[in-house]
């Protein structure tokens, strides 16, 4: 640990020296030097399946920006590191990116636990992280911009849809998830939300399975029994490859999407790529973007993606897909570019201020805006799985929805701040201890 920290210490000392000795020359030297940015996604280990695409799409976006003249006339130079699905390593690598490579911003993380592990580092060194994945909320850091969905931008609209007559007027809800923080928090929010809609506890079942659970016979039989007492919908936060045996079992035991629909929050185009989609057809997923969306921005985005895949000869070739977190990465990078240009500097504090209110025409077909709570306004869409592993959108919101990172359905969240507090020196000195608690303005 000490050994690893040494370069960081030296670098910090060196940079202090540089600041005191020659602020002016370094500023001049920077004028046309490339801007360094970090890409912090696992390229090996269990999360590599999902995160590799995000690294690819980030590189694609930087290439695109460089082709069109860079940011303020300066090229962008991505620094790619591999935290190897190892949570403590995420923290080390982010320290390396911020302290050694002096990156202007970092684009990365997938799981909530990886984000939680880098958060203290970003707050301590005043870095800027763009987090592109839907998550459980309950967080609002001044050093993070969340371009994925908060629960009210994914889970709650999906349940509202299931309750509506169009979605099947479900009266009973079977919540099933993998046993970790995201499903448990989401289900806690959903249960409170269902209560507010007049659904009794006796009409809600909540079941968890371990990671890579493979035997869903009993649970599917339970779902069937549960569904006898009224129109039932299943809300799945099952993560990773457990989804395959789950949907297979549903199909084999004759539970069809038309009688008991399953809406999933972690099943997207990338996850469907490796599996036989036959048993899944007709089931639902809730996201903010689908590859199958038809609009000019998305067409251009997909075209650019496939050109990038072909040019770099990426594995998977034309079978590669785009998905929601990839779109969120793409949007995040472009917004950061716009903010840097507005601020006229890559300085974290200036960019942070300039980020608020940034607008970008996203591949989801809407103009998205960054809110003062550091979350994107996002449209919500419900898609139905098609045999080709794509989704057809069956329902979507008319306009983007503002994120509520502090869900009103979790007790104790009343009165939590609605936007990220402006920069104050006290926060910095507070260091990691303040990481979780937002500062009230």
């Amino acid at each position, binding site marked *: 640990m000490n050994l690893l920290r040494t370069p960081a210490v030296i670098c910090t000392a060196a940079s202090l020296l540089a600041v005191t000795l020659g602020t002016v020359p370094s500023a001049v030297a920077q004028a046309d030097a490339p801007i360094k940015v970090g890409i912090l996604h696992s390229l090996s280990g269990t999360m590599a399946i999902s995160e590799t695409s995000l690294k690819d799409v980030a590189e694609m976006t930087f290439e695109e920006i460089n082709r069109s003249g860079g940011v303020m006339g300066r090229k962008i130079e991505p620094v790619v590191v591999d935290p190897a699905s190892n949570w403590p390593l995420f923290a080390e690598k982010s320290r390396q990116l911020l302290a050694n490579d002096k990156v202007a911003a970092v684009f990365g993380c997938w799981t909530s636990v990886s984000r939680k592990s880098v958060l203290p580092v970003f707050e301590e060194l005043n870095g800027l992280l763009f987090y592109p994945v839907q998550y459980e909320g309950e967080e609002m850091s001044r050093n993070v911009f969340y371009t994925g969905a908060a629960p009210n931008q994914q889970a709650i609209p999906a349940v509202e849809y299931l309750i509506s007559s169009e979605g099947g007027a479900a009266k009973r809800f079977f919540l099933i998830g993998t*046993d970790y923080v995201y499903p448990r928090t989401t289900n806690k929010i959903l249960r409170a939300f269902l209560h507010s809609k007049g659904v009794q506890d006796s009409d809600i079942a909540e*079941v968890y399975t371990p990671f890579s659970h493979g*035997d869903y016979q009993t649970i599917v*039989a339970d779902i069937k029994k549960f569904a006898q007492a009224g129109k039932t919908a299943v809300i799945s936060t099952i993560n990773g490859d457990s989804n395959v045996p789950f949907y297979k079992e549903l199909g*084999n035991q004759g539970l069809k999407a038309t009688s008991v629909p399953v809406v999933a929050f972690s099943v997207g185009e990338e996850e469907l790529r*490796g599996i036989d989609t036959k048993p899944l057809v007709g089931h639902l997923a809730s996201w903010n973007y689908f590859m199958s969306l038809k609009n000019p921005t998305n067409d251009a985005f997909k075209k650019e993606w496939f050109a990038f895949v072909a040019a770099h000869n990426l594995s998977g070739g034309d079978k590669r897909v785009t998905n929601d977190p990839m779109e969120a990465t793409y949007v995040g990078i472009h917004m950061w570019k716009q903010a840097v240009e507005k601020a006229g500097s890559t300085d974290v504090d200036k960019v942070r201020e300039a980020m608020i209110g940034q607008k970008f025409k996203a591949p989801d077909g809407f103009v998205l805006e960054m809110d003062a709570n550091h979350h994107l306004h996002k449209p919500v869409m419900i898609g139905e799985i098609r045999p080709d592993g794509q989704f057809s959108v069956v329902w979507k919101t008319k306009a983007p929805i503002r994120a509520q990172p502090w869900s009103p359905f979790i007790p104790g969240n009343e009165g939590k701040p609605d936007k990220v507090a402006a920069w104050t020196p006290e926060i910095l000195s507070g260091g990691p201890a303040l990481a979780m608690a937002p500062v009230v303005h």
Partner: protein
Amino acid sequence: MTEITARKTGNALGRRVGLLFTALWMGIAVLSPNTARAIAPDQLKALGEDDYDAKAAVVEQLADDGDATAERVLKALHDDTLFALPDGSLAVQVGDAYHDPLTDQAVQVKADDLSQVSLSNVLRARVAAALAGLQLRSADPGVRSRAVDALFSRPDPTVRKYVEAARQKETDSRLKGRLDQLWAMTALQDPDPQHRLEAVQLIGDRGDPQLRSILRPLATMDNASGDDVKVRDAAQAALHKLDRAQFLADMAGTAFTGLSLGSVLLLAALGLAITYGLIGVINMAHGEFLLIGAYTTYVVQNLFRAYCPGAFDFYPVVAVPAAFLLTALAGLVLERTLIRWLYGRPLETLLATFGISLLLMQAARTVFGAQNVQVENPSWMQGGISVLPSLILPYNRLVILAFAFAVVGVTSLILNRTRLGLYIRAVTQNRRMAACTGIVTWKIDAYAFAFGAGVAGLGGCALSQIGNVGPDLGQTYIIDSFMAVVLGGVGQLSGTIFGAMGLGLISKVLEPFWGAVLAKIFVLIFIILFIQKRPQGLFALKGRSVEA
């Protein structure tokens, strides 16, 4: 597909004939105003648009009309062959051609202009029910029977009139019985108490626990009087019957899922029962033998898909022996190059095979990619057989169960009835004595290990049909495999069978009460305690070999 219909189906002549027909038909339509359609083309347009309520209204009206046009449109909706054109009109895909849904005449459209009419799940269910209702009038008993099935799975009050009509006309006695039950489901609120009574009794006879929810209001009627009392009593009796049926289905279901999980564990553990149980090699790479078997299945499946897609359903016939042979070969190589140097040194064997396991996993990652690969069930392994109205046994689980017992049978035959088996048992029980009688013990070691590996390959082939195939497949089963073998008793094939089946049943009995996570923890605690009490496992070998 760029430009369509006439060019594909035929030529200019065909086009002209089509036009002629259209003209003719239009003429008839003009001449005979009585055949005016109930649904106007403008109304149909709503199907191609995004307004859910309007779509639902059209489906409702089609179900109500019940004429040939309605049936055609519903069928197209049901089969996903209805397309919308930019001008809002609709076209039904018939083979390579497109027809007008109202007239059933061919129309010319550009494929690029077409967008499929999409339905939500709710509408899809409505369409299926309405279509089934209309198909009850079909002359073909097969179609009628399927329609009845469809209506049972999603009873829809809107089709009651068709059910009633079909019930009066039906001549096939079996079908009539089921139609009566179908009618009963919609007649529980009938104003005529006699009908209600009949309906309640019919539902009780059907024995489907799913129907309990619709009986319950009748059975708990508070201020019943006159005929209602009779209905209530009948409903209570029927409910009681259905409760019993549910109880039976629950018991049978738990027993089956337990055995099915047990058979999976058994297949995963059987190879280990030979390599670890008989030969005594602590083989940490056992999971990767399963992996080899599973990836072999994947490759064979892909070859079938590429070279003879017609015989795709029979790929397991090739995959099973291929998985056995390849994995056995891998086992043989591993034994000859590594394990034979380590006999009698369990710790080093453990470490070495663990290293091999990592190597093989990484190899799978390099060759096939880190992502799971897709192994598709042959069509005869999809779906299930309904033994009770609320209990469906999936075919793939049944096949795995049968396959597990077949593998056990063959393995025990080989071990107990063949010369190779005799040698293996002799060598594992008393190596020196076996050598004295002229058995070449190193050869037997190699054969036995390869055989055990091959059996693991068979397990992998079977596991690929129910779970994920990816580089981590072995890791998910290795713990369970050791558990089954150790619990059953090292050195005994029958021990492993009981160990695996016992573990499966215990997990499944506990799961409904405690959930999957706690059940798994409990099973582990149970095994730890059990091994404390009885270190030799369920079935111990008797005699001197134990000390050897």
